[in-house]
């Protein structure tokens, strides 16, 4: 993407808000008022995109968070005479606090329980505001004084429009940078596939908390911006119903981009003002609209518009579609390296795991040498997957040692392994389907802490060398697996074989020293199995990455690995080179039930 397009995509949404403001300034008082409240709703919609669209959390507490922002700035001004600008900053703070409070239980629940927990927050907030009469004026409401900024008192409709327009555009700019950048992508990854996200250092609870905090800050800010505009704050204007209608903004507009939030917020808020005569029916209309959108247009208005546009722009679209069908480039065949250092990289010793009465792993041991490819085979139920999950950190061991280059892995969370240089692939492919192949691989780089991602989002927005370097590394990894042509394609639309390649690219981009491969060819077409094996051998040879492979396909394992361990009933029953191990009577008996004595 060219620099100009990148910058435009980043500041576009904010520019639209500014353009609306400029347009409104030339109109009468009533349109000025309508545009002001629409701008506030656009900010709310954009904030909800973060939480509802990207993190896929349902919130029925948006109005109460808005109330928190509105009451914070107003009460600071009324009771303490604090200037409006500082009051706005205070609203950011209380908004963040509210988001964090909701996230405390919010990150533990999904679906209906989360909806109910947020409803609890909403209701308790409003009850508290209503009961704390001396502070908030109770149910009768409280008058908000006209704000003053640097000696400029905001009084006329035009003043208010200017104030709201500038500040909401600023807030939307920040949200756009976050949503389009690494933060938004990691958030989608966390919501889309928790296990894969954790494996690549994306902490799901941390990201969900961040989503609540960021969206609450945005909504509280919108509340503080609109408070002087509505003049009288009363708790009933921030009740459950407004909350539910705010939830409609991102759904109707389109949940997956800032544009959807803006379109939904602005559209739904302005519509009843435009259609005054039938205003009575607006709630019924909105509710029905949401149901229709959820049933028939899950992508919302933005998706509809995008589809309409792409019909007009046929040729460009065709080219992309064609490239999706081109087979992945066939990597060159290479000879496996013969010289192998015997120095151990991963050591597993005496590992035990019980599930109730089942002794799933029984003092298992295995060694993966530096740069080696080690296979782990065994019949179903032998404990391979349990052992694999212990090594990858998704299952705690009861006893034993797992060390990587001298560091013990057992006390380490799964997401911390990537820092040491261990990555993995998944038996059931776990790509982040909504993200492009390129973004999937960028997440594989592993620097995915929340703050790091916020910084990265800024880097991407500014177009810094950092961001370009990350992209280039990721492109190189995609090229290594033969998927460079599909960098922009959503990962979810790839074939299974290509998704497995993508997982490999994601696993190698951070330059790890060990990849854990969980059944890398399960479900892959026969013709592609050889390609994948060549690919793995080449990666091993060129990048010196060691591999631990769990796999059922014995011919594949035999040709790929330089050493094998065989598991049976929880214990390692044989070890050695593939040819030796497979010939062992004990192994043949394990697999085929051959009578050794006969």
């Amino acid at each position, binding site marked *: 993407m060219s620099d100009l397009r990148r910058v435009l995509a980043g500041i576009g949404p904010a520019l639209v808000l500014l353009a609306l403001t400029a347009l409104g300034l030339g109109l009468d008082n009533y349109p000025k008022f309508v545009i002001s409240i629409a701008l506030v709703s656009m900010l709310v919609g954009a904030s909800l995109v973060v939480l509802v669209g990207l993190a896929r959390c349902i919130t029925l507490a948006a109005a109460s968070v808005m109330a928190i922002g509105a009451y914070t700035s107003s009460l600071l001004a009324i009771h303490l005479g604090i200037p409006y600008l500082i009051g706005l900053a205070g609203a950011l703070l209380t908004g963040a606090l509210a988001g964090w409070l909701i996230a405390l239980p919010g990150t533990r629940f999904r679906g209906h329980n989360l*909806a109910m927990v947020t409803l609890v927050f909403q209701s308790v907030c409003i009850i508290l505001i209503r009961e704390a009469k001396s502070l908030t004026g109770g149910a009768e409401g409280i008058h908000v004084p006209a704000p003053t900024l640097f000696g400029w008192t905001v009084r006329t409709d035009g003043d208010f429009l200017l104030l709201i327009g500038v500040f909401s555009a600023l807030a939307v700019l920040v949200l756009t940078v976050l949503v389009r950048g690494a933060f938004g992508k990691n958030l989608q990854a966390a919501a889309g596939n928790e296990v894969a996200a954790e494996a690549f250092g994306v902490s799901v609870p941390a990201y969900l908390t961040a989503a609540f905090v960021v969206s609450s800050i945005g909504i509280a800010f919108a509340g503080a911006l609109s408070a002087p505009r509505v003049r009288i704050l009363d708790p009933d204007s921030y009740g459950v119903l407004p909350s539910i209608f705010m939830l409609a903004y991102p759904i109707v507009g389109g949940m997956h981009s800032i544009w959807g939030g803006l379109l939904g917020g602005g559209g739904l808020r302005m519509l009843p003002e435009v259609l005054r005569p039938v205003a009575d029916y607006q709630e019924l209309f909105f*509710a029905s609209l949401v149901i229709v959108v959820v049933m028939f247009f899950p992508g919302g208005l933005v998706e509809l518009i995008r589809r309409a546009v792409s019909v007009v722009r046929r040729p460009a679209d065709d080219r992309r579609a064609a490239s999706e069908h081109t087979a992945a480039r066939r990597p060159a065949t290479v000879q496996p390296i013969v010289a192998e250092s015997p120095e151990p990289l991963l050591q597993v010793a005496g590992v035990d795991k019980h599930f109730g*009465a089942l002794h799933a792993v029984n003092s298992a041991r295995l060694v993966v040498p530096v740069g080696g490819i080690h296979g782990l085979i065994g019949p179903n139920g032998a404990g391979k997957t349990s052992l694999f999950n212990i090594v990858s950190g998704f299952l705690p061991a009861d006893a034993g040692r797992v060390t990587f280059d001298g560091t013990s892995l057992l006390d380490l969370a799964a997401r911390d392994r990537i820092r040491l240089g261990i990555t993995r692939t998944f038996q059931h492919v776990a790509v982040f389907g909504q993200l492009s192949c390129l973004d999937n691989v960028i997440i594989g780089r592993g620097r995915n802490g929340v703050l790091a991602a916020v910084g990265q989002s800024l880097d991407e927005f500014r177009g810094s060398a950092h961001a370009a370097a990350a992209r280039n590394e990721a492109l190189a990894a995609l090229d290594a697996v033969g998927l460079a042509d599909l960098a922009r394609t959503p990962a979810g639309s790839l074939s299974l074989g290509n998704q497995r390649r993508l997982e490999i690219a994601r696993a190698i981009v951070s330059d790890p020293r060990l990849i854990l491969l969980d059944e890398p060819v399960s479900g892959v077409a026969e013709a592609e199995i050889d390609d994948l094996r060549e690919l793995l051998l080449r990666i091993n040879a060129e990048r010196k990455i060691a591999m631990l492979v769990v796999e059922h396909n014995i011919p594949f394992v035999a040709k790929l690995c330089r050493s094998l361990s065989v598991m049976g009933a929880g214990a390692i029953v044989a070890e050695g080179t593939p040819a030796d191990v497979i010939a062992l009577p004990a192994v043949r008996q394990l697999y085929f039930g051959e009578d050794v004595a006969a």
Partner: protein
Amino acid sequence: MAELGLVLIAGAKFGAIYALAALGLVVVHKATKTVNFAHGAFAMLGAFASFLVVVHWQWPYWMAYVLIPPLIGIVAALIEFLILRPLRRADMFTVVIATVFLGIALSEAFRLTYNTELLAVPGMFVGMPFIFGGVFVTQETLWVIVGALVISSACVVLFRYGRLGRGMRAMASNVRGAQLCGYSVDRVYMFAWFLGGAMAGLAGVFVAPVSGVSVELSIALISAGFVAGVIGGFDSLKGAILGGLLLGITESLAAAYISSAFKNCISFLLLFIVLMWRPEGLFPEKVARRV
């Protein structure tokens, strides 16, 4: 002592209605693994229908009890067919959103057709109150408590021993397995919604004389039903009944001895505590431990 008795009776009265509301919610969840956020709106429709039957058309009161539950049940089954069935392959997120807005659409439709704040419905019984140890209990109150609890318990028995109840339980534990055993997903889901809707309708008929018919009823009953369900473990029918009673009595105690504003907070507090510390509920069904 007499005051405490009054408070407890009042709590049990609401508790019995909550139990009925929770029961419908739990039946639908048990069979389909979805929580119907429009459940409160169904109950509100039931209460409204009760107003039509008793006040508007002046039909005998028992007809409300006989006609309305199946009617609301049919409405619910139709909604399942028209809206939930196409969404069956969608995730929980989508389904919750759909039912939340469905509830809004139903209550708004009611608000638009009957543009009043509150419709009053008389009680079924107006005779002399009973006196138990100094505590006055009106016949209406006794009817609500006993009637709602007896009907709820009957549902529990039906669910446990009936073929469809078995189908629903099978469906909830393993859809594919239940299908292989000859249960039709479509039919079981539809029947679950019918049953859930019928119970919501019944809760509506019971609640109409107690608190009148208003749009607020919708959110009040879904909240109370949900909290009662969570307290009971959400998959336990007995738990839903006990949870409803516990919630009603706690609310009533809080209103009498703390403050009426706290009455609204207490249910949320209960929900919060149970979800955070005992997500399996206070009265969970015994589940075989999975190995």
